[in-house]
């Protein structure tokens, strides 16, 4: 049987990480194909419910990435997002959800190489963790 290929969903901001991922491509850098990128206006827009929906729809891992602190296109979206992630991550951990499955990162538009590296290491980590079996059981109880 072939090796487990994880499904990774990346929630990225339009202004930094999406442009950074674009740079990865235009620089012809190869990286793991398991990632599906979803572009958002800002990390401040990335509601925690969206991450839960990704898991509910079969993601094994999640990447959340945006502009470095002080580089936000809207000045403070990433600072607000950071507070939310700090609390959300703590809550998920408390509920027994493996937070190693959610990777948070700051990647600027100039960091194409960092994006490639982030996706590769995340894919590798998730591959080691295996399919998200706990959530898989819930999932079959009723996702449209």
């Amino acid at each position, binding site marked *: 049987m072939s090796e487990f290929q994880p499904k990774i969903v990346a929630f990225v901001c339009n202004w930094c990480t999406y442009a950074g991922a674009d740079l990865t491509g235009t620089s012809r850098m190869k990286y793991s194909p398991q990632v599906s990128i979803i572009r958002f206006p800002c990390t401040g827009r990335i509601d925690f*419910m969206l991450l839960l929906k990704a898991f509910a729809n079969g993601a094994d891992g999640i990447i959340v990435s945006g502009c470095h602190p002080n580089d936000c296109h809207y000045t403070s979206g990433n600072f607000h997002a950071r507070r939310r992630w700090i609390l959300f991550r703590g809550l998920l951990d*408390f*509920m027994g959800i493996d937070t190693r499955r959610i990777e948070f990162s700051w990647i600027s538009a100039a960091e194409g190489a960092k994006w490639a590296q982030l996706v590769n290491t995340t894919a590798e980590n998730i591959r080691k963790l295996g399919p998200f079996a706990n959530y898989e059981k*819930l999932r079959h109880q009723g996702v449209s």
Partner: protein
Amino acid sequence: MEALKNKAREWLDSRMVQLVIGYSQGSGDSVRAVFVHDPGQVETLLFDSRCRQNLAVYLLKPEVKKMGKAALVANLTTLRAVLQLAAENQIGEHDVLTLTVNPAGELLVLSTLEAIETYVAISAPDLSVEEKAELEKYEKLGMEERWQFWQEQFSRCLKCYACRAACPLCYCSRCTVECNQPQWIPVPAHDLGNLEWNVMRAMHLAGRCVNCGDCSRACPVNIPLYLLNQKLISDVFRNFNARSGMAAKAENTLSTFKPNDKEDFIR
């Protein structure tokens, strides 16, 4: 509690308030909320250690607002809920008068938000020693054990939303649960929807919950929702040094930030 009854009568007589929201004897040994309009009804009012319900939950209900200005018989967490509602611009300085009984058994009239602020300063910094110990007990479990524990708890959830109805800070007239385009929270009470609902309820109260515990008491299947709230209260205090319901002009934890908020997980 003669002083309480006298004060309520005085306020109703003088038309300073049109309504007193307080506690009265319920069935058996329980107490229940009572809405007193008529000075003749103040005899039903009482206040003792059984009066734990957070009556601030009624303040924002349209049907209660219609009754006119209210006086609230409040315990400590109710007062904190009033301050938090003020911090969120849900009630103003002149919308409510509060009456409370201090640990020495004396009636206190807290007629301004400032007076409430001074009084609630007696509450514990974030959680009490017992609460911290219980929280730690669960935090120390292995990840799989924590998952099993919460799955077992949530498997009983009926999606009745009694936790939401009992909460003085769940006041949105249109909750995310009712949003169905897209359907954020699945309607049937299956394990996935139950998990999502409970994560969402806890997160939407992050940095706002005043730890009154009414969600857990309202829960017909005894899910320990207070643990989730207390986890977030403890994290908010530890990470942002913030406490909800302590000041009428406080900033909301999740709608503000500090450039130097500490985390160690963002690469």
